[in-house]
């Protein structure tokens, strides 16, 4: 299966986005034999380095606006529940400018997957702080260091109603692949937060390699346990950084409520005329 396009890849050598691209390719390759034809897959992306993935994958894609990858993904899913909808987004994208859409998509538990390339810096615009940059982050707009503390996006997602929450790392492709695959097959809103390293503006490989570990003996069905593990690291302080699945719950999805009413578009004029009798 050739998943490449004629687009030239413009990511920096060593960019963490390659890990996500490769993990996704591996997942997509397995989808058809598991019953999802590739034409049923649509990928959505925002604007930022992450978003170029839409150009690099030879599947249906919707290269949206900054912060706006999620609403059109929801629209497509509501239009056709058979579509497999995967959103790629950045931390600036979905934790910043488009945060409302992220929260509401989780609140609706709509059956889509959002993969956030969280490099904790605006890279495409050459290095400014983002919602997950640590306090004191020195970027081009904050040469003295940002005076804002980061948000913990996973805690936000848990509170908002996401029914699948996991964290991966661009330094661990096998785990990333496993999580992405699980997230896509989860029925409901799934968030995959990826600690994706920007080698040019925020190279955290050494830091992450020292701090990350994979979750073990964690019960993902427990909200309280998930919250505890999610709060272990606040994206700011020195702490162990866990990776893996935090929370998973089966709940009715928003798209379920949009089943076709079966009345179709045929004969609408006569039905309109019948309806007008109520207005006499």
């Amino acid at each position: 299966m050739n998943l490449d396009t004629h687009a030239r890849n413009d990511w920096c050598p060593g960019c963490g986005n390659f890990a996500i691209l490769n993990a996704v390719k591996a997942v997509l390759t397995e989808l058809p034999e598991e019953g999802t034809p590739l034409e049923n897959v649509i990928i959505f992306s925002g604007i930022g380095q992450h978003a170029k993935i839409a150009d690099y994958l030879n599947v249906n894609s919707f290269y949206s606006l900054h912060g706006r990858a999620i609403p059109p993904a929801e629209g497509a899913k509501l239009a056709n529940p058979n579509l497999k909808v995967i959103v790629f987004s950045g931390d600036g994208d979905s934790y910043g400018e488009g945060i409302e859409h992220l929260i509401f998509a989780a609140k609706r538990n709509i059956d889509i997957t959002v993969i956030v390339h969280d490099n904790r810096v605006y890279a495409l615009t050459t290095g400014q702080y983002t919602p997950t940059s640590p306090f004191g982050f020195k970027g081009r707009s904050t040469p003295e260091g940002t005076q804002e503390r980061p948000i913990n996006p996973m805690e936000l997602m848990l509170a908002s109603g996401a029914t699948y929450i996991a964290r991966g790392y661009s330094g661990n492709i096998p785990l990333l692949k496993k999580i992405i695959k699980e997230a896509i097959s989860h029925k409901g809103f799934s968030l995959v937060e990826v600690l994706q390293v920007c080698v040019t503006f925020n190279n955290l490989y050494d830091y992450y390699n020292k701090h990350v570990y994979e979750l073990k003996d964690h019960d993902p069905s427990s909200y309280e346990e998930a919250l505890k593990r999610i709060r272990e690291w606040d994206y700011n302080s020195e702490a162990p950084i866990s990776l893996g699945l935090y929370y998973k719950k089966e709940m009715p999805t928003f798209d379920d409520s949009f089943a076709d009413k079966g009345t179709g578009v045929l004969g609408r004029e006569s039905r309109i005329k019948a309806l007008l009798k109520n207005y006499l």
Partner: protein
Amino acid sequence: MNSFSVLIGGSAGYGIDRSSLILAHILNQLGYRLYIYRDYPSLIRGGHTFSIIRAAKERINAHSNKVDFLLALNQDTFDSHAEKLNDKAIVLFDPDSVKAEGLDVPITKIIREEKAAEITRNTCIIGAFCKAAGIGWEILEKEIKANMPKETEINLKVARRGYDAVKELVKIDSLPQPALPILSGNEALSLGLIKGGLKTYVGYPMTPSSTILHFMAEAADEFSLKVVQPESEIGVILMALGFSYAGEKVAVGTSGGGFCLMTEGVSFSGMAELPLVIIVGQRTGPSTGLPTYTGQTELHFVLNAGQGEFPRFMVAPGDPEEAYYWATFALNLAWKYQIPSFILTDKTMAEGGFNFDINSIQDIEEEPPLLWDRKQPYKRYQVTETGVSPLALVPDKDAVIKINSYEHDEAGITIENEKITAMMQEKRQLKGPALAKELDQYETVKVYGKKSAPTAILCWGSNKGVCVELSDKLGLKVIYPLVLSPFPVKQFQKALKGVKKLISVENNATGQLIKLIKMHGFEVDEKIFKYDGRPFALDELEERLKRVLK
């Protein structure tokens, strides 16, 4: 009586809106043609709300400030509208709550004796009105039963007591013509979209477009519609673009403030060539302005909204039949040319009550979009002679369908190459002339009144009704461009033939249509603007026209 008006007013929460509809339906049963002007403040309880129901033998789409019946449910109603009373006007009021001169209706006493809810005051006064106007009880009884499915019995009782409490003072004769449905402009527009094959409506509540959202939600089962209310107008338009990508005919509706948030999505629709219908209901601006009042101030905003250059369609219907027909048309054009397609209305049009004659509307069918013929490998943005690329819809096993907000090549892959950039800009622009050429086959600039008159009124949108009615009376011509983008220059030029004096009538302070025609080399001679949030009343515009006609 050639035409007459009934004004009913009270506090918000008194059921004025429904009362005005019942009054209109009563007159409708008698064979009158109707127009309802609704005036209400942006609050839930209290304040002063009123409606003017104007009735005539012929179709009318305008209200008058000359009132023949005043139904005052509170003191404000009498105080604010006493000056509108005609010589022989009949005032009905409750002496226990309103100080006025006219016909006493002991409403407070009646509802106490009947132990009826406060809100039945309006039913009581309608009962009294019917008797005073010589309207048979059976007509009122029928309308109460039809319009008040809850608490029907008590309403009938209270209405009957009101009916019996007064004498017949005049006799409104019935006319030998059948009743016509009474719809708001938004209802007619919604039905037009449904007729055109709409599958999805996405909206965030905002006056005066919320009633489209409500109507669609109510009609969802009957017409198999998906209706979604997302988190914001940004969410609305982007979600709609997702539906559009998946091949569903979709529309969104808002007002100026919400449309501000939508503009990035408008530009995206233009760039990505995603078909979309956008309804903008104008109200009084700037900013929050007067949320429940009217204006015509968004013409240039909507014409120019969104960064970059791309063709768009824009129509401003002036009556419910036009709203119905052009809503279908707008949906067709959006899909035929893969462009954003705008329907510009305003509070007057959106929430006014009108008769609606579906049989008078020219036939229009849903048109299928240009689909991929499957002969060559699929390219979403294939360059063609008309600029329109054939559509494939997800999922299609033979096509990878790539949508892009960046400049892109024919396959939808991001590019920055200058040659491809220029080629794609030209491709999108090509659709403009193609659209203009098609529209030339339709009547996009209408002419009314005395067509040979040297003096013409120039108006657009909801001012059509008041201008057309006055033109008949004053012997003027009316020139009314219905399509505003692409501007129908040739038809406009033709309409101007023989006109020596052109008088512009607009609900704004700067003359937005004047500016638009000026871009095409046309000028007006006189300007009549109104920007107090209220539409022109007949008598008011007549007086202002006479001033400039001297």
